């Protein structure tokens, strides 16, 4: 691969607006000179390949796509696509995981030796995070779980050494991969429990079908140390918690179908659940407000803000998208704000129908067409955080100011289908 050339303006390294403006200015003056001189445009170099900055941006987000079978990386500030990581053959790509410590990206892929035929093989694939070039692959047990959301199936434990991969074949287990040693170190039997919730360098949590949580403790070698169960803290039949949790250190929060927020501390030997508190008042429940969506919760550590997609519906509507995002202060356990989800239809139709989604036609459509709401949200962790929103069936991503809820922009033409949004 050739290094990126000196070309201005479109070079991913130079995606800051300032630089782009400079670039345009530069181009402009260059040309006026050129025109003045009536000189020909000079021949250009073939073979340039763009690079990413050495450090991941604060406002970047991965957008996995089930049909295109890749995850694209977007810059929430410029609205530009920065690159993509391909996935294998599965219902939903497992989102790429970024290791700042190693400048690597990890993607767990399922492939078949003949494309859609042949022998199944699963790999933890390692890419260079600055060039997005393939670096290495680690074969794992060919039974990585595959779901229509791709949520909580793979977790990189703190320290960026151990990768935990949920298996379903249909028995449940978790494969442990040592990224340093480039090998799988263990397969932990986790009958009755599911999902991976990282909680330290050698531990992760799971949720279980009997209404308990479980902590899997690893040795420093990546082998299983021990497993510890919590007491039963939710009713799987009457009011289950979703596996779409949010994290702060060793603490995870899970919301129940009926709107109770459960806090689970995984810092101790066994998970210790705290008493849940309601996300809805009796009146709000009366009005039919419920949680719902795919990735329906997001959490900003710096401000301890919880974002929750809500809609009005009944039992069985727990996967419906919501047109409102309610904001809670976790410390005071109070609702502090209500954000409106943007209407993404114009941003979705614009690029297809050939009109500028931010122009008149876009405004008309957003007014005429009802807001379909969003299935998923994700928030950046910096001091001026962005809230990304997505409807699983619309190829567009909304960008909000996570502090004010202001609609900053919609990014169109972002693919075909998918529920996840992942901040690197």
């Amino acid at each position, binding site marked *: 691969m050739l290094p990126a050339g000196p070309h201005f303006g479109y070079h991913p390294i130079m995606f800051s607006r300032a630089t782009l403006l400079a670039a345009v200015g530069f181009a402009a003056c260059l040309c006026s000179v050129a025109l003045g001189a009536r000189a020909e445009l000079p021949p250009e170099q073939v073979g340039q390949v763009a690079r990413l900055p050495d450090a991941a941006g604060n406002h970047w987000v991965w957008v996995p796509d089930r049909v295109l079978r890749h995850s694209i990386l977007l810059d929430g500030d410029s609205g530009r696509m920065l690159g993509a990581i391909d996935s294998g053959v599965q219902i939903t790509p497992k989102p790429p995981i970024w290791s700042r410590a190693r400048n690597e990206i990890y993607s767990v892929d399922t492939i078949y030796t003949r494309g859609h035929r042949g022998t199944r093989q699963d790999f933890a694939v390692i890419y260079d995070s600055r060039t997005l070039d393939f670096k290495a692959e680690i074969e794992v047990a060919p039974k990585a779980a595959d779901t229509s959301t791709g949520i909580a199936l793979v977790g990189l434990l703190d320290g960026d050494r151990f990768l935990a991969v949920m298996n379903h074949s249909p028995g449940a287990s978790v494969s442990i991969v040592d990224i340093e040693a480039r090998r799988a170190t263990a397969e932990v039997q986790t009958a009755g429990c599911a999902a991976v919730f990282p909680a330290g360098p050698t531990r992760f949590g799971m949720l279980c079908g009997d209404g308990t949580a479980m902590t899997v403790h690893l040795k420093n070698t990546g082998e299983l140390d021990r497993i510890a169960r919590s007491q039963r803290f939710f009713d799987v039949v*009457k009011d289950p918690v979703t596996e779409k949790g949010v994290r702060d250190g060793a603490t995870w929060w899970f919301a129940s179908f009926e709107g109770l927020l459960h806090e689970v501390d995984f810092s101790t030997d066994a998970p210790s659940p705290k008493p849940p508190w309601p996300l809805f008042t009796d009146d709000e429940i009366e009005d039919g407000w419920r949680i719902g969506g795919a990735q329906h919760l997001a959490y900003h550590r710096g401000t301890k803000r919880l974002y929750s997609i809500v*809609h009005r519906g009944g039992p069985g509507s727990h996967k419906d998208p919501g047109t409102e995002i309610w904001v809670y202060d976790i410390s005071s356990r109070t609702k502090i704000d209500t954000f409106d989800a943007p209407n993404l239809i114009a941003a979705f139709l614009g690029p297809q129908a050939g009109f500028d989604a931010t122009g008149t036609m876009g405004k008309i459509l957003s007014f005429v067409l009802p807001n379909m709401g969003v299935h998923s949200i994700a928030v950046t962790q910096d001091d001026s955080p962005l809230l990304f929103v997505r409807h699983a069936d619309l190829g567009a991503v909304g960008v909000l100011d996570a502090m004010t809820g202001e609609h900053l922009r919609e990014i169109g033409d972002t693919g075909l*289908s998918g529920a996840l949004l992942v901040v690197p």
Partner: protein
Amino acid sequence: MSRLDRWFEGMTRQSARRLSRRHWLSRFGGVLVGGAALPLLPVARAADENMVGADGVRGREGDPARCEYWRHCAIDGFLCSCCGGSHLACPPGTEMSPVTWIGTCRNPADGKDYIISYNDCCGRTFCGRCMCNRNEGERPLYHWYRNNDLNWCSGTKSQTYSCSTAVLVKVADEAQPEK
């Protein structure tokens, strides 16, 4: 507002309601399943003409190629009836998964609740037609046999997912326990 406005808005409103119930890949699926093709089929006509269809159920609730089919109360996937198979048979060239998730659905014809097994058909890529997602009594990942997010192509030669069936297992001892 002109009639066209109302038509257009009505269409989109309706569409939005439908869409809001749709799930992954429904961009090229459709809740009123089968779209233009089905009305040409006797079974679909049965629905339109409110005749009695499969399982002795009237209208769309009796049509295995529509999302409203009574057995689809907890399904998530492409309907095999639109993919070369049926609600009981996988399309040619695919293999039915022996393990699966279940739902408890009420048959409007006899008022009885039945256990429905949504066996996936595996070994080909997405059928891509008649996407349908309903979640009555559906449960999160850790409650495996009630979860419809999972790719249930397990115990099959290949785990690529093509479409889903809706096989009647038996009468349920109780109504859908999960709300």
